[in-house]
């Protein structure tokens, strides 16, 4: 057991290192956007753009050999000194730390609810396959994964926000500060964004759980359990769900993160929620390279951490693993 866990931890570090190197590689290989932004802002102010470009390269020692820049970049990354954000005039880490609560406040509920309800629906439609409820459930799941989240948000704003105006269509970032994170108004203003994100993640969880559950239900040990006199409830939970949890656990986090990241940038832009999504959006608009790098790396590291959680869950859930193999 320990050997497997240490192997997985080592692998997580290697993956993180490769991720950082890849982002550095992409940065180095690209025409440096930050530099273009600096020259443009100088030209606007009337200074000589060429000279601005020179001192920008100076400050970021872009002319140093690649290995030296690489090691600096890595050291900075590891020591959490991720550089200075021009557009927010604060250090990147600070910006991220100030923004993440706004994302977490709706992200965590979305992840939890979509998993609990998603698995519940998935199990139910696997329990009664090819019935009306199953067809209805699968249509809802198709709807959930097909509907473009930004368009769905606009439609909801159009239908609910404008006429019913009790549901705010824009997020007032002051509310959590004055009335606290769990106040009613904060809840109200998060209603539409959470619902939009929820449909997509719920749909994914449901489809995946239904497929795994149906596969497990065809196994012989379910028939044996039924022959033991087990009730349908005990069969579905203790046998089918418990067994499906093994494959489900290997994609619990990464699958959700994939759906989630896409949605959060768009949702926070539409509803002006000052979370990590909006942070990376404004960074891109302002062409603030360090901040862009920061938000991307946070996303990648979170995904890698999620992968580690999945691997450990796999070990706990499936006694069959012979601890030698991957």
């Amino acid at each position, binding site marked *: 057991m320990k050997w497997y866990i240490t192997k997985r931890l080592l692998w997580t570090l290697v*993956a993180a290192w*490769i*991720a950082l190197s890849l*982002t550095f590689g*992409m*940065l180095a*290989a*690209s*025409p440096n*956007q930050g530099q273009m932004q600096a020259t443009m802002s100088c030209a606007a102010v009337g200074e000589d753009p060429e000279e601005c470009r020179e001192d920008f390269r100076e400050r970021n020692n872009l002319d140093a050999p690649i290995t030296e820049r690489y090691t600096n970049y890595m050291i900075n990354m590891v020591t959490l000194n991720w550089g200075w954000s021009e557009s927010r005039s604060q250090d990147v880490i600070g910006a991220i730390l100030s923004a993440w609560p706004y994302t977490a406040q709706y992200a965590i509920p979305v992840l939890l609810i979509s998993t609990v309800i998603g698995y519940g629906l998935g199990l139910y439609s696997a*329990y009664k*396959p090819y019935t009306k409820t199953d067809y209805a459930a699968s249509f809802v799941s*198709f*709807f959930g*994964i*097909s*509907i*473009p*989240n*930004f*368009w769905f948000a*606009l*439609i909801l*704003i*159009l239908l609910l926000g*404008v006429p019913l105006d009790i549901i705010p269509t824009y997020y007032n970032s002051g509310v959590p500060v004055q009335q606290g994170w769990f106040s009613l108004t904060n809840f109200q203003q998060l209603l539409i964004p959470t619902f939009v994100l929820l449909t997509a993640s719920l749909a994914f969880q449901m489809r995946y759980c239904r497929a795994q559950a*149906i596969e497990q*239900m*065809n*196994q*012989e040990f*379910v*028939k044996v359990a*039924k022959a033991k006199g087990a009730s*349908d409830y005990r*069969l*579905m939970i203790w046998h089918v769900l418990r067994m499906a949890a093994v494959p489900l656990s290997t994609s619990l986090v*990464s699958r959700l*993160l*994939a759906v989630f*990241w*896409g949605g959060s*940038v*768009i949702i926070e*832009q*539409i509803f002006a929620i000052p979370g990590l999504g909006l942070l*990376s*959006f404004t960074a*891109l*608009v302002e*062409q603030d390279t360090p901040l*862009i*790098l920061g*938000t*991307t790396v946070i*996303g*990648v590291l979170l*995904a890698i951490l*999620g*992968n580690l959680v999945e691997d450990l869950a796999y070990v706990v859930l499936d006694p069959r693993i012979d601890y030698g193999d991957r």
Partner: protein
Amino acid sequence: MATDSFENIDWDDQEVSTINVSRTTFVELGLFALLLGAFLYDYLIIQNEGPLVANWDVLSTDWLFIATLITMFFHIVLPLYQNPRMRRFYWNRFKKNQIAVLAGVFLVFIFVVGVVGPIVMDPPEVRFTNRIVPPAGITATIGGATKTGTMAAPLGTDAKGRSILKLVVYGMRVSMQVGLIATTFTVVIGALVGAVAALATAIDVGWLDEVLMRYVDIQAVFPSFLLLLLLVYLFGAQLWIIIMVYSLLSWEGVARTVRGEALQRSSEAYVTAALASGANMMYVVRRHLIPNSANSIIISATVSIPGFILGEAGLAFLGFSDPTVFSWGRTISNGQTNLSQAWWISTIPGIFLFLTVLSFYYVGEALRDAMDPRQQVDSGGGGL
């Protein structure tokens, strides 16, 4: 003459077996060579200035689109055409799912209009004279003035007076290009990596398989949308760059499927039978492993196409996509400002986007049921 029978094969002169490239593959390679030649001519000789053919200046995405159409023709349309029995078998099972048939028809419509439309119809032009006109037959009050739509712009116009109908038609082409080109590249790269990995295990070059699969694990973990944003920012937002970035970021699913299929099939009896008759590993890969994974490739492709379309639309909505291209996402985003009065600007393209993506998912589901009975839930047997 009496039917030939196996006894009278004279084995002495049958020693060497040539690698015979079939006629169709030969034609396909020829077409690709032609395409490459035209591209080099356009790129090097006339430095992409004037139009290449008649008045059609072939843009970067078009080259990719033509290459995709050629690949799709030779690997999907032609094989189905060549053996009717297989086609009938799959069609009978596919048409059991009426919604999928409907979705299929809709997709064909989108594809044809998307390809033909922009050739026939000139691009949407800005005319401030008839800004924000509602669709034909609908009256709406915009900024005090009430207007009713006319057939001139059947679906109404946007804030810059561009006809929504044209925007939608051009949007179809963009979505089709993104979906099909990116998927074709993902399939080609993924199948290649998957086959190489499976082959490596089969001929005991274990470490190569291990390296490839570890990279695939990393790529599977990366949140592709975030990376997309970063790469588009770093390398510019032209459509073909977005498509290539998408292709390079999301082939891991196909690689895993092809590798899994190939490994599982290489232990099947008909592969051992081929080996027992003297076939070498390359013959087995070419004749058995790759064609057999075609089914699961097609299934995973029909699921990845909508993913790419939604991704590009999201990018366009945020304003990071190619400004010169009329993507649905961009049109929806532009309609965001005057959403309350001019609801149609965002809604109509959104409906098309939603239906296209939904259709792909339904067609994908029906294809999986038709092609891969193993994954199908059989009626008898276990369960409650």
